[in-house]
Each structure stands twice: as C-alpha cells, then as structure tokens.
C-alpha cells in the first residue's frame, strides 16, 4: 500500500488550487477497473473528488506531459512526482523542454507500483476488484468466490523491484519523508546478457524484438523522446516506416532509439511498461547506462539539472576507442 493516500493528495491539490498557486492539476484519473488509471487534468476540488485516484497502479511517469501541458496551462500546473519521475523532470529541464516557472512540482513517496499482468498471473484474469490492505492486495475475480490476498511485493513492476532511488531530486514541495538513493540490482540482467555468447544474445533479442508491432508506444511514452518530429514519422526522412520490414528489422528502430537516448535515459522504465508485446526494452537502455558508468564513471541522468553528461563532455581521461573495441572482443 502507498504511504500517501488519495485523500492527502486531493487535500494538497485542492489547497493549491484554492490559494491560487496552481490553476490545474495533473493527476491519475479513475478508470473502469481498479487498475486502469489515465493521466488526467483536474481544475477543481469537485473534479478531484469525483475522478482522482492514487493506488498501486499509478505507474505512469507524468514528466513528459509537462512538455505539452505546461505550455498550455493558464497559470501553473501542479504535478505529482514519484522519486523516479523527478529524474525525468530534471532531464527534461536540462534539455529545456518545458518552462520550470509554469510548473509546481510536489514530490510524493512511492512504495513501488504493481504490474497488473503479475497480479493476473496469480489471481487469474477476470478481475472484479483490487483493494490495498496493508502490504497486500486483496483481489476479487469473476471466477473465485473468496477474495485472493496477494503480497504487493510479489507483483511489483520490474522497475520497482530494481528501484534505483526513493529520493526526489526535484520538487517545490515534498509530501511525506524523503528517501535514499538505493543500491539496486538493476544491472544484473544486463550482466547476464553480457555473459552470453554473441549467438545466444542474438537469439535472445531476436525472440524479444520479433514481437514488435511498431506501435511506437515505447517512443511516445519515453520522456527522453521529445523530438517534435521523429525521423521515423517523417515521410521525407527516407527512414520513415510504419511497420516492421521483416521479422527482425525492429532491431534497427529499437537500437537507433536506444542510441539516441543514451546518456539521457534516466531508466524510468516507461518503455517496458507500455509495450503491448512485453518486450524488455529497458535492458537496451540499461546496457548503455552500465557501459557509461564503466567507461566514464558513475553517472545518473537527471540527478542534477544542467549536469555535463559524459557523452557530450570531453575530458582527457576519456577512454580511447580501442579500449572499447577490445572490451567488446573479450565479451564476444
């Protein structure tokens, strides 16, 4: 269960609306079921009361919405940011993608968000209701007479199991207690892939990427992908395409995208969350982050605004291309 409640968030948002600090609130809107929340703009206490939710399924990272929504807001826009969202927030600020003056950021604690597919894998599908009860989720389904109790920690999203930080790196106001940067195991899976032979690794990615339907959800949800016109959408770019050209062509799209966000990706994990085909896209980005850490020293995109990212910052200590080449050879 989240430490902060829906009621506390509504009270905070209503207060900031009524005292004129903000004119709109970007929050989680109630869905048809207990797990399908939609990012929603609220303008009044009444709207918040009717439609605002906060529960274990509020995983969406709102930072990217600031690019489009903050520009349109009349006054300031209130945005609730979980710790991981604040890294994207800073990264977008570094890239001058939204006007900081138009945003009022409230940092909120996060206990990790649940992955509905993991819930269904335990409860069976046909979900009738899901309610948090302490450290558990109580699930009722259309098929079981008795409610099913599931430990929330057993159904956390991958990115939350490997949470990198409970600390907020940006906010105007913080609700609840500040957390710490965590020693996460997020690179373990990358290390496992690195340990594979080249053929095994190829087979792994072929299996994963061959499922791609080229819906672009990963790109469109990604806070690091904010080009106004993506080359892949531009008929004049020569590389525009709307569908996979063959069963494994997608390696091009995904690898090009991973290169494009390298050094800027904060590892928020939205790409994997939104993928309708469950492709672990975050592993491509983490490989880049792990390499950057090993090549240039520990670096976390979004930790600070205006930090010099290693890939755009030359120092005489930078490693030589030959060293990278040798390293690749040894891992083949």
């Amino acid at each position, binding site marked *: 269960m989240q430490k902060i409640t829906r009621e506390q968030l509504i009270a905070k948002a209503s207060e900031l609306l009524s005292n004129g600090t903000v004119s709109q609130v970007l929050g989680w809107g109630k869905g048809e079921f207990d797990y399908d929340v939609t990012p929603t703009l609220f303008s009044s206490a009444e709207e918040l009361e009717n439609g605002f939710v906060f529960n274990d399924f509020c995983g969406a990272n709102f930072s990217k919405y600031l690019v489009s929504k903050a520009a349109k807001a009349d006054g300031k826009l209130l945005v609730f940011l979980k710790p991981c969202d604040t890294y994207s927030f800073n990264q977008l600020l570094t890239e001058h993608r939204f006007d900081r003056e138009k945003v009022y950021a409230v940092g909120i604690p996060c206990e990790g968000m649940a992955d509905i597919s993991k819930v269904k894998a335990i409860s069976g599908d046909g979900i009738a209701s899901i309610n948090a009860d302490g450290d558990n989720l109580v699930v009722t389904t259309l098929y079981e007479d008795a409610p099913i109790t599931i430990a929330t920690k057993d159904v956390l999203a991958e990115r939350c199991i490997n949470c990198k930080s409970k600390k907020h790196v940006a906010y105007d106001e913080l609700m609840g207690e500040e957390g710490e940067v965590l020693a996460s195991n997020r690179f373990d899976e990358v290390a496992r892939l690195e340990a594979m032979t080249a053929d095994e690794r190829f087979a792994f990615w072929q299996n994963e990427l061959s499922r791609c339907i080229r819906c672009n959800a990963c790109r*469109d949800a990604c806070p690091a992908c904010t080009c106004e016109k993506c080359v892949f959408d531009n008929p004049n770019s020569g590389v525009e395409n709307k*569908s996979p*050209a063959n069963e494994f062509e997608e390696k091009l799209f995904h690898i090009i995208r991973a290169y494009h966000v390298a050094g800027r990706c904060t590892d928020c994990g939205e790409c994997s969350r939104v993928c309708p*085909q469950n492709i672990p896209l975050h592993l491509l980005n983490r490989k880049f982050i792990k390499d950057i850490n090993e090549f240039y020293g520990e670096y976390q995109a979004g930790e600070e605004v205006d930090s010099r990212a290693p890939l755009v910052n030359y120092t005489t200590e930078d490693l030589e291309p030959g060293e990278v080449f040798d390293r690749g050879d040894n891992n083949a």
Partner: protein
Amino acid sequence: MRKCSLEKINEIFAAIAKNAALYLPVDRTDGSAAYKKWEEGTVWSNALNTVRSPKDFFFPQTEDLMRFKTKGKTVQLEDIRTEAEAFVVFGVRACDVKSFDILDRVFLTEPADSFYANRRNHGVIVSLACTRPVETCFCKTFGIDPSAPAGDISAWKTESDIFFEANTEKGKALLHTLSELTEECDDGAVAEQKAKINAVMEKLPLKDLSTKGFGGGKTAELFDAPEWDELSSACLGCGTCTFVCPTCQCYDIKDFNTGNGVIRFRCWDSCMYSDFTKMAHGNNRLTQKERFRQRFMHKLVYYPENNDGLFSCVGCGRCLAKCPISMNIVKVMKKIGGNKGE
C-alpha cells in the same frame, strides 16, 4: 454435431495439418499468447485472446503488392501475386470471428481487394466458444454471443471434450476429414456449456454498455462534442490500439526503391499517427484530438453509416488491456452518446 476427447486433440491437429497449414494460439515466453503454425509438439494455449488479432491472416501488417522497373520511357510491371496457401485458423473467439464480417465489407466490396480475397478464399476458420470471459470483454454490446461463435466450424471446449459443428461448405469439408477422429453426438453438453458462459456474461462489469446514441447519422451531433478534448488529452499518439484491433483496417501504400526497381507495398496505418492520410496539400488532422476522434467516429458512426448500422468494434477488449494510458472505446462510449452519466 461431432465430438472428440481432448486427449486426442493433437491427432485432430495432425489430421488438419496434413492438408493445410494450421495456425492456433500458443503461449509465448512473455506470458501472453500468439497465433503460431502448428507442428508436432506445439501446445494449444488456453488464453482467452492473443495480443494480435487473427485479422493478420487475411490482412497482414505489411505485404508487397507489385514490383516495377522503369527503362527509358517504359515501365515494366511485375505481378507478384501468387495463390495463397491453404490454411486453417483454429480457436478464433466469437468477437474475432465477427471482425472478419467487418473486414469483408471493406475488402470484398467491388472492386474487391484481390490480396485479401485470395487469403479469405484459402482460409478456413474454426472458432471456439469462450470459456472464461474477462472484465475487459464487451462483445454483447455489439450483439455477439461468445457461446455461439460463427466461423466455418464452431467449436466448444468442455473439461474433457471438444465439440464441432460445421456452418459452411468449407467447414463441412474440413470436418469430414476428421470423421474418423470424431463421433456424432447430441448438443446436450454444448447447451450446458453455453448456459455456463452466459451466466458469466451476466457478471461482467461492462455488460450494460450500450451503443445507443451512436450509429449512422450521428456525425453532426457527436463531431463537435466538447468531451473529445478531455478524452484525447492524455493520448500519446502511439498506434497500439489500432494495431491490436481486429477491425482497424486502414493502410498506407508506399514505394520502396531497391536501387534496381521499386517494390510497392502496403502496411497498416494508424489514425493516431501524425502522417495518417497525408495528402499533397498536407495533413487534414493536425491535432491529436482530431486523430483520436477519427478512430472512434469511424468505428461508431462512419462505418455503421455506410454498412447498414453494423458497428466496427467487436468488444474484444484488446485496446482496454493494452493502451499505455488506459483510454479506450468504452471510456469514449461512456462519456458521449447514450451511456452518458451511467
């Protein structure tokens, strides 16, 4: 009606696969299911639905239409059409079977799409009644009975047996090839199964969703509804809903210059994309709101207007399950039209 023990299901599959390519839902490594070609050892999935719909069999995401080469002032055309393979799609749910009717009206109306028609003529659909509808299902809204799926052959699965009923000549011919593996039976067990499914349908959260307020002639009323702003506000503009949808049928035709001639191909397009229906003068839908509205107006107003009131949604629930921001046709139907306020 004929039946066969589920213990012999692999013999059924082997018998079908002897004469035609057989495709059926198979569990994947990521926990969901997809249609795969059957071969000895393939295990049939119990999943209610596949991520991608079976429309792919008739209308694949991408296909080459023709090749041509220019030489001086002449253009050499190469017709690359071939006869489609004979194939059977097994285990198609009632909602997805209905989607073929919707696609047929688009692709088989004269001038018929010969690529689509070719596959349609060579494909046999063996449907399967649902055993476990879920919360995202709303096929009944569109008059579909999940316990009585259409198709060339309808099938029902119980704990122990599978039952078949042929509906078309193609279906009869296929079922005839299975006569040694199946036996004639009455429809008692199937009737019982149907009752079970229909009892679950009564418990579904979306069972009362209605199409009232939508349909032909509603353009003027719904096009400028103020609710479109709010509904489309969070839309990312990705193509997930359109690409997992069994009835989305829009495509783009493009030329690929191979350096030695041109391949003209078509691929699915998505009304959510910024260059959808781009024309010489530019683009006629400049905002995501307009693109978002297009999808739902097409399914709920324009299509029925041109197709005797038939809606172009089958309530399969894929978009409900897959939209990254959980915005979908159900939420649209509840905000505008006749479900307003319910």
